[in-house]
């Protein structure tokens, strides 16, 4: 079996938002919509305070709350662990947006206009309109077209750039690592063996596909 997951090494992440920007380019998301972003956290009270940067996005859960509430089965789980949305089936009811504990979903009804209505769409916004995503739920896809292209062409997702999500490709700190957790020799499996790690909202038992490394064992 194969299950693709994302691993974020918070010892390496510095919150630069390059992944955020790369995701916006690759997926042409609307202004204000970030399928991948990095949160800026503080823990503690001065002077005993720590600051950390936490990449977030869709966790591609095994038991996905978003899929549970979807009335049209538009949100579904692929055999490789990626949670996808069939935009043709989605009616834009936004139940999934409410249900997602990771706040990873959005709905956008209008074409992208970064500088607002009065200036219209820029050329690159017109070129990649993604009109199939209007008025339906949207979220991180793990750049699924790359995964499918890669597996069809003998490439390894998470290793070969053409088969790897844009955020992991772009990460300047190599803090985002993508791979197959069911392969014990994969990049992500090795990292999870050698590092202490946690998942967000583990208590909700979503079976998240997003792991956070915080130090070497």
């Amino acid at each position, binding site marked *: 079996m194969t299950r693709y997951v994302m691993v974020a090494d918070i010892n390496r992440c510095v919150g630069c938002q390059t992944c955020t*920007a790369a995701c916006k380019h690759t997926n042409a998301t609307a202004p204000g919509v970030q399928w991948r972003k990095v949160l800026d956290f503080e823990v503690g009270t001065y002077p005993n305070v720590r600051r950390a940067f936490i990449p977030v996005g869709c966790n591609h859960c095994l038991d996905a709350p978003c899929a549970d509430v979807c009335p049209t089965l538009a949100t579904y789980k692929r055999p490789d662990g990626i949670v996808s949305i069939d935009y043709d089936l989605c009616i834009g009811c936004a139940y999934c947006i409410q249900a997602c504990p990771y706040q990873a979903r959005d709905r956008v009804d209008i074409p992208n206009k*970064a500088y607002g209505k009065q200036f219209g769409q820029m050329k690159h916004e017109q070129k990649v309109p993604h009109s199939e995503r209007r008025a339906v739920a949207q979220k991180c896809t793990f750049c699924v077209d790359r995964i499918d292209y890669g597996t069809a062409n003998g490439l390894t997702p998470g290793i070969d750039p053409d088969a790897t999500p844009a955020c992991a490709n772009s990460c300047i700190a190599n*803090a985002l690592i993508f791979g197959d957790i069911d392969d014990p020799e994969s990049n992500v499996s090795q990292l999870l063996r050698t590092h202490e790690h946690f998942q967000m909202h583990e208590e909700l038992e979503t079976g998240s596909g997003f792991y956070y490394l915080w130090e070497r064992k």
Partner: protein
Amino acid sequence: MTTESPTGKTKIPTYCYQCVAGPDLLNVRVEDGIATEVQPNFDAADCTPAAGKVCVKAFGLIQKVYNPHRILTPMKRTNPKKGRNEDPKFVPISWDEALDTIADKVKQIQVEGKTDEAGYPKIAASFGGGGTSTYYMGTFPAFLSAITPIDMGFGSGQGVKCYHSEHLYGELWHRAFIVTPDTPKCDYIISFGMNIEASGGVCGVKRHADARDRGVKRIQVEPHLSQTGAASSEWVPIRPKTDPAFMFALIHVLLHEQRDRLDKVFLRDRTGSPYLVAPNGYYLRDPESKKPLIYDLKSKQAVPFDTPDTEPALEGQYILSGIELGADEDRWEHQDIKVTTAFEKLVEHMKPFTPLWAGRVCDVDHKIIRRIALEYLDHARIGETIEVDGRTMPLRPVAVTLGKTVNNGWGGFHCCWARTMLAVLVGALEVPGGTIGTTVRINRPASDRNDSVKLSEDGFLAYPMNPTDKENWVAKPEVRNANRTLVPLVGNSAWSQALGPTHLAWMQQEKGPEHWPQATKPALWFVYRTNPAISFWDTEQITETIATFPFTVCFAYTRDETNHMADILLPDRTDLEGLQLIRIGGTKFIEQFWDHQGFALRQPVTEPQGDTRDFTWISTELARRCGVLEKYNKAVNRGAAGVALKTDYYDFSLDESQAHDVETIWDANCKAASAEITGGKESQGLDYYKEKGYRLTGFPRIKWYLTAKMEDEGVRYELPYQETLKRVGVQLGRRLHERGISWWDEQLEEYEGLPDMMDFQALWEGALERNFGVDISDYPFWLVTSRSMQYAWGGNVSIQMIREVSQNIGTHGGLVMNTGQAHKLGLKDGDRVEITSPLSATRGILVTRQGIRPDTLMLMGQFDHWATPFAKDFDVPSMNSLVPMLLDLTDSSGSGADLARVKIKKIGDAK
């Protein structure tokens, strides 16, 4: 099998050099001629230290091309009145009209005299910091060289917002315009406010992440918890501007508690530590050769420093005879006087600066200071070696780094000296794992630090100090910031004018100091990739000054606060539309020490928008219309565009009588670059670089360090004692006093053999009280700033996507204040507040954070825009409008620091 990758069919290689942490080699995905996506260039993964990755700023470049706010045609001002509240009434004009108008002005200046009644150049030019503009302005430097002299001294933050003291003293001491740890090998870093995770670019971020992964310990000492502090092992919240005390205490611990563990071989052989200092503060010298003397423990006598087969004494006092050569013709002959080794003087000098003393100054537990000193020493691995390119070198994996406000302004000299001394004491200067330099900008050749190593008569690194002797001192300033007259250390390279004191040029426009020529206004001012009306201090005054300049030409991307006062706007092509070959690799700037060197091409990835023109086309047309085409072409042939087009082993020079098109000029440069890189064997031109994007060859790692060259040439670092600086300072003082000038006296005090400690906080407080007649206790907070990785240097405030992603960093939103302190004052996150300094006031939103000292406030980046589209709606304040330009707060190197005292009051509730 699918044949087309979803990452795109057409990818065009180019580079981003928006900041000095570049260049980042990248690909742009293009769909039907439209640029849609910036991607890493994984072809370059093995030959760039950033592994082909791209900084967040580069992702703004696509919106930069298609931004609806762009200026897309030349414009001229039709409202002769200039001012913030005057509508310039720009109207579109043709390129012919724009360029002819400028050319007429240039020709008039050439005919009537290139300098004005004060002796200053009539033409001035200001460019964005760090030399990054050069990587975008094509052949414009060749044009400027054809119409010299140019006053480049109207800065846009240079000197006060750069690593200014580090630039000057770094070059003086170890050819290090920029100083960095040898991060790939370093195990322990003490970082005083150096926000490397926001300023180090892709290369810096990756290297430091790798270092953390292998267990490097980095201590971040700074008043607020920056991104770098977040990624460090420990944060030490120090009082602003007290870093010198902390560093002096570290040295104290090493000298007075751990002296036996220091690298005495390095101190003896590679530094001035054994040189004997005579009673007047200058070296004791041999009467015949005039060489400085050391005491030889073998022969038990004083001998010239370069005497073979000696064992110089590092410590001790001796009764000896010799001469002492002071400033000008000062000379003392000594018989049997007491002299002291420079190292012994250091030991005595540092005695008072105990951790207990420093702890009180810095508001840091003294036990922390002592522990850090000991950890630093423990990690230094003194005595260990490593092989680099076949040569055995010391391995000293410890370093101290300095950030802005620490390494500039008053205290910058002290911090730079102390940092370098911390390296010297453990033999960690310019060795693997230690503190190294990356860039040369004042010495020559700029292309190779190692080749710039020259032996001075006294056995140290020779330095091109501006003269201070009676005969050669540049008594009459050549440019309005008087750089060569006032600051011997800035030298006389192409960078020297921009090294300032750049605020002096602005300050004098209002009122010059006594016995000094009243500064004139430039008759013609070129501005590119900079916005001094926003990015310097006292922005209101600068804006008013800019409005008085009679003829300003701005290369303009969008309207902004500086070009609001322009007479002509010229829309050049943006980063992804223009053509230029640049030199890359080797060692330079922030963390940029590579295993490769060579060239990269920036090329149009999409059709240029509107009637914008390539910078090289603009430069050639200006040269032709100004009647200086031959001089311009000569400069291009000489290498003004980056590569000499003719050498002994190749010749791609251009016909000097003809105007050449953009592609012809860069094709010649590409061919010359290929020839240079292959020793004349190959000569691929523009087509090759358009396809590949770059061409590299190896760069030997041994050249990351000066050690091999220093050892081979027998050169010493002039540390700890500063005899050269002391002499220069006395001479400069005499020259100024001979002209009745005493307003530079405080700066002269900084020329010392060993730096005297000062109360730097009191210095700021006193200067503000004196100049503004305020009681400083009414302004209870220190205001500091911090680097924004998303914005710094980019000129990208009008890019929506940059604004959007930067908002994920919590400290971008407004005035950052300690949460507990806010609570005490009845303030809460989101409140609207007024921030008032003795100079002026501004307004913004309060952002409460735990990671900042209660006595400190922080404003990130430089905003406060009122003309730049999109950015003018941010409602984010900037410290620049609050910080005055004061001579009292200018140090001897001509530098100031981003630091203010402010008070705040609530003016509205959180929404």
